[in-house]
């Protein structure tokens, strides 16, 4: 968080300032929607390493971070990109080849963990998961936990209801809070101070943003005055949480951004094909990410025609006639 000032900066500087080797990171969005992809690509270009990544179901962004070797530890509920990859391909490979340490949770558990972090409490209770291996099997060993002061000594803890049977409940699972060093989200509109307006589903972006020590916001439209305050009911994140605001049109591409553009089925299908083969995936990283020094360059390489194809129509908020076969 940063309270005062104009927070507009470049994505290069924001990543350089806040995303360090070994940092604890979370990214917004869900599977193929509103992932902060421009920031993900910049992290890859800057060759950040050994990141501890927290994810609920942040599909495409997580797969590219894992695929490029950015991630060392991953706490996750779901690694999938809808119909394009029922299991994210580089994520699957990295886990099978033991290239990353992984620990599994459910989506609600991960969301509650961010909420606990945003609330300043060490844990929250839920009635999800009793009797499952999500509770019984740990990805990080008790020894590894004790050596790492940034993660709790226990994964999940089952307790008896301390209020007796109040709420018709006997048992609860406690989920430990997460406070990432940095959360990165992509939103439709943000102002120069970091007030954010999200259209459509917010997923867990608000909880992730408020739990983080530092928040980077990329946006489709940057508002350089205080006009977002004219309709405060439509703003989800107040400026006090934000440290950096970056104007990046199509900043979620190839994932979707409601009322702005759809996901790009051509990109996502091609990505899934290349991701299956190590050599081809290496070429993808070189040709698509490193040879395009900025997101603008990456979009230019895709071409205006493709971007027009995924442009959202005003009525629906997505590309009504997009060929998704």
């Amino acid at each position, binding site marked *: 968080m940063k309270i005062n000032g104009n927070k507009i900066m470049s994505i290069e500087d924001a990543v350089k300032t806040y995303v360090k080797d070994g940092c604890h990171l979370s990214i917004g969005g869900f599977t193929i929607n509103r992932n902060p992809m421009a920031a993900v690509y910049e992290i890859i270009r800057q060759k950040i390493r050994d990141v501890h990544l927290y994810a609920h179901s942040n599909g495409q962004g997580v797969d590219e971070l894992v695929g490029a070797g950015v991630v060392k530890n991953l706490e996750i509920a779901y690694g999938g990109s*809808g119909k394009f990859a*029922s299991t994210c391909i580089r994520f699957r490979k990295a886990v099978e080849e033991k290239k990353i340490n992984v620990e599994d949770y459910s989506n609600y558990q991960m969301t509650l963990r961010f909420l606990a972090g945003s609330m300043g409490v060490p844990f929250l209770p839920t009635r999800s998961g009793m009797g499952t*291996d999500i509770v*019984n099997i740990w990805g990080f060993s008790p020894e590894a936990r004790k050596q790492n002061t940034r993660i709790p000594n226990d994964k999940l803890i089952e307790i008896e209801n301390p209020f007796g049977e109040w709420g018709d409940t006997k048992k609860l699972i406690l989920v430990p809070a997460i406070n990432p060093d940095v959360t990165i989200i992509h939103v439709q509109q943000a102002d120069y101070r970091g007030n954010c307006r999200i259209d459509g589903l917010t997923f867990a972006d608000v909880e992730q943003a408020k739990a983080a020590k530092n928040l980077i916001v990329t946006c489709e439209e940057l508002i350089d005055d205080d006009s977002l305050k004219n309709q405060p009911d439509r703003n989800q994140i107040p400026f006090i949480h934000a440290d950096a605001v970056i104007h990046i049109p199509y900043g979620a591409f190839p994932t979707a951004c409601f009322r702005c553009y759809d996901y790009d089925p051509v990109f996502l299908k091609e990505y899934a094909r290349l991701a299956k083969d190590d050599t081809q995936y290496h070429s993808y990283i070189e040709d698509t990410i490193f040879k395009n020094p900025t997101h603008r360059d990456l979009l230019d390489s895709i071409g205006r025609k493709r971007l027009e194809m995924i442009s959202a129509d005003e009525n629906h908020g997505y590309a009504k006639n997009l060929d998704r*076969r």
Partner: protein
Amino acid sequence: MDYTPKEMMTIAAAREIRNDDIVFCGTGISMLAAMAAKNINAPQSVIFFETGAIDSKLEDLPLAVADPRIMYQSSSNAGLLEAFATMQNQITGRHVVGILGAAQIDIFGNLNSTVIGDYEGPDVRFSGSGGACDVASFVARSIIFMTQEKRKFKKKLDYLTTPGYLEGPGAREKADLPGGGPDKVITNMGMMGFDDQTRQMYLKGYYPGITPDKILQNMEFEIDITRAQEIHPPSANELSLLREKCDPQRLIL
């Protein structure tokens, strides 16, 4: 009339959905089944997504539960916290029907969607729970889509991601899971239910052209087949609504 096993599965699942059910659905065939129910036999059912949208208009088939197509004309666009709270809260949760899928299932309807082999360095890694563990913990009943294969109907799961009836009678109650547990399993060959007493899976129906024995041959564990009846094939009306209203681009079918 010609139809594919996938069409039969989708329609068999849709028939299990009633008016006033709040239907939780995931990606792929489960989403299509919920849309089919809405368009065919349960127009008053409500479709609901873990990402936070409820009663989306669904003019076009979504390809993920975060597809912008679920945000169009929904009753409210919220987030994950609100969606899972709706299921955990038993005032609303007891009206929710979950549609799930998995890589492995056991006789008590427990599911694995995490790994084959050891948890560390597995032979095959899958997506993981997503919301499945939450849904199956909370909601009144769930419908599970499976492919009928020996390696998927397992005596012992490699990893228990999503709770069914756990170890059998009384186990969900002992674990204090609030929801009701699995109700039906729908495969490309037939449909299973769960016995009220033993909590074990039994064969409830088989599709035309399939025999109960063939289903047994494609499972690692034995189930009771004495209650099984042939399932009605899809009607012309069911098929045309499924094909024309729900998935005209044949994105899932």
